[in-house]
């Protein structure tokens, strides 16, 4: 059964800062204000039009608790309803889900979601480790770093093919990031550097190399949601939220058995299957025109492609090897450059929704997909294995 909604909800305003490793020139609320101002300008609204602000990031990255209080200086929530959300890496995606729900319910007509992080202000890996169960796992974990996905792919397809697929994916993301003026990291990599990078990029954990891991960025993203009536009044190109799904998994890390007799529940696969089934989408690879995927590292990305689209054998690797995921390919993935390109964690999953919506509107900028984008998909990832997926549509006709 599809998501039940009292009324349709559209995205009518999007604002993003330039993501960067050094925004020493602004403090936290000032950085947020940049994104909020851009979103208001994009929607041609003022703060007076906003009924509710949904604010999110992860406290342990900056160690400012209840940051929504201080951030009021930048969020504009002064004297307004403000709801704060933290769900880990998925927080940005959850902000979008919550804003959709708050608007669809009839509670508010116009809701603004703000995702934010200034990762340079804390220690990302040290911070993440503090999310683990303090009774035992805090002492063992190494942040979000693991080479297990690499091990997976390598076991199945051999080290050489696996490494080349990972680097190909990485370089495609770099090429996309090069087109996105807001992207944090764009190195100007080329495919002829694959062998060199495999050899020289320092290893972090197992086969996971520095070049393959996501960036640590300062940045903010703001998205404005409106009910159908208001969205049509305010915007010429509202992007409709068709459905979203959240799937959680227990916190324990009992996923490392590596035995085909004992398959591990994969939340991406599980979420995608349910979402597509309840919306009657039989061939998602053909249905969607763009996919903004939360890709913390290229290894995870190549492995997850298979989960999201239920691909068989080496279809997922072929999509990468044949560059079908590049702008201009069969299903462009992350025209924005993805999480590998920019990663202000509390904003990251909201940027996926925002970038997917910009593609649907057709005004993403230099990284706009040249062919029409009618159906877009965005994913979020967090915690030990949590998934949030959001489907966006150009027309209200499903």
């Amino acid at each position: 059964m599809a998501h039940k909604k009292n009324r349709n909800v559209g995205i009518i305003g999007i604002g993003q800062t330039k993501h960067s490793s050094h925004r020493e020139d602004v403090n936290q609320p000032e950085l947020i204000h940049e994104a909020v101002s851009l979103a208001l300008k994009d929607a041609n609204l003022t703060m007076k039009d906003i009924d509710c602000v949904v604010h999110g990031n992860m406290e342990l990255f900056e160690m400012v608790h209840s940051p929504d209080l201080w951030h009021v200086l930048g969020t504009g929530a002064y004297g307004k309803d403000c709801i704060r959300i933290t769900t880990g890496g998925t927080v940005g995606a959850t902000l979008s889900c919550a804003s959709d729900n708050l608007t669809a319910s009839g509670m508010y007509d116009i809701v603004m979601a703000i995702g934010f992080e200034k990762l340079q202000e804390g220690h990302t890996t040290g911070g993440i480790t503090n999310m683990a169960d303090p009774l035992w796992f805090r002492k063992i974990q190494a942040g979000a770093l693991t080479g297990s996905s690499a091990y997976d792919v390598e076991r199945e397809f051999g080290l050489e093919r696996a490494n080349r697929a990972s680097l190909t994916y990485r370089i495609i993301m770099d090429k996309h990031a090069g087109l996105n003026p807001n992207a944090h990291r764009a190195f100007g990599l080329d495919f002829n550097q694959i062998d060199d990078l495999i050899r020289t990029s320092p290893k972090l954990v197992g086969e996971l190399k520095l070049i393959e891991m996501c960036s640590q960025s300062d940045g903010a993203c703001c998205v404005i949601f409106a009910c159908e009536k208001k969205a049509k009044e305010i915007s010429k190109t509202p992007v409709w939220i068709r459905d979203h799904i959240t799937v959680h998994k227990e916190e324990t890390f009992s996923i490392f058995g590596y035995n085909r007799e004992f398959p591990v529940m994969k939340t991406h696969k599980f979420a995608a299957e349910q979402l597509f089934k309840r919306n009657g989408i039989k061939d998602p690879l053909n249905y969607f025109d763009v996919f903004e995927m939360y890709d913390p590292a290229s290894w995870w990305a190549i492995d997850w492609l298979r989960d999201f689209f239920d691909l068989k054998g080496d279809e997922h690797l072929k999509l990468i090897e044949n560059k079908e995921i590049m702008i201009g390919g069969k299903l462009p993935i992350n025209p924005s450059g993805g999480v590998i390109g920019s990663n202000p964690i509390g904003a990251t999953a909201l940027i996926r929704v925002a970038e997917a919506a910009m593609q649907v509107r057709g005004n993403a900028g230099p990284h706009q997909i040249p062919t029409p984008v009618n159906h877009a998909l965005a994913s979020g990832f967090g915690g030990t294995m949590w998934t949030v997926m959001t489907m966006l549509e150009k027309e209200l006709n499903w």
Partner: protein
Amino acid sequence: MTDQFQGIEPMVYKSKINVPYSWWAGDTASKFYLTLRDEKKITATKCVACNKVFLPPRKVCPSCFTENTQWVNVSDEGTLITFTIARRQFAAIPSDRKVPVIWGLIKLDGADTAMLHYLDEIKPESVTIGMRVKAVFSEGRKGNIRDISHFKPVSRV
């Protein structure tokens, strides 16, 4: 609770967090602190839409939501709006401040918002709301809010 937990003692497990942080003041607050440090002057930002003067300076006016681009000097003298007194040496009180410690909300002349700071050179029982106070600058200024050591009463002439 069923008897399956019989003989099992819950324990208290000691843990810790230890992570480095660095918070950037941004260009607006930096300018305020640097003027304080280098020139012993208190500066504030002004909203060009509502004319409100913010101290500590804010880059954005929270009600008009416009960027405060104008800087103004405010006086080092002002009025005590309200105050409170700590009579126990809490861990959060800096070690160079001994109880009784008086905190005041001080609205400096020329500013529209009040700023929290220490009151000193006065007995707690003599503090009154509405009294006039003046900033005393610290000797070794480092570019933070304690470059103002405290506020003291303006002596009656």
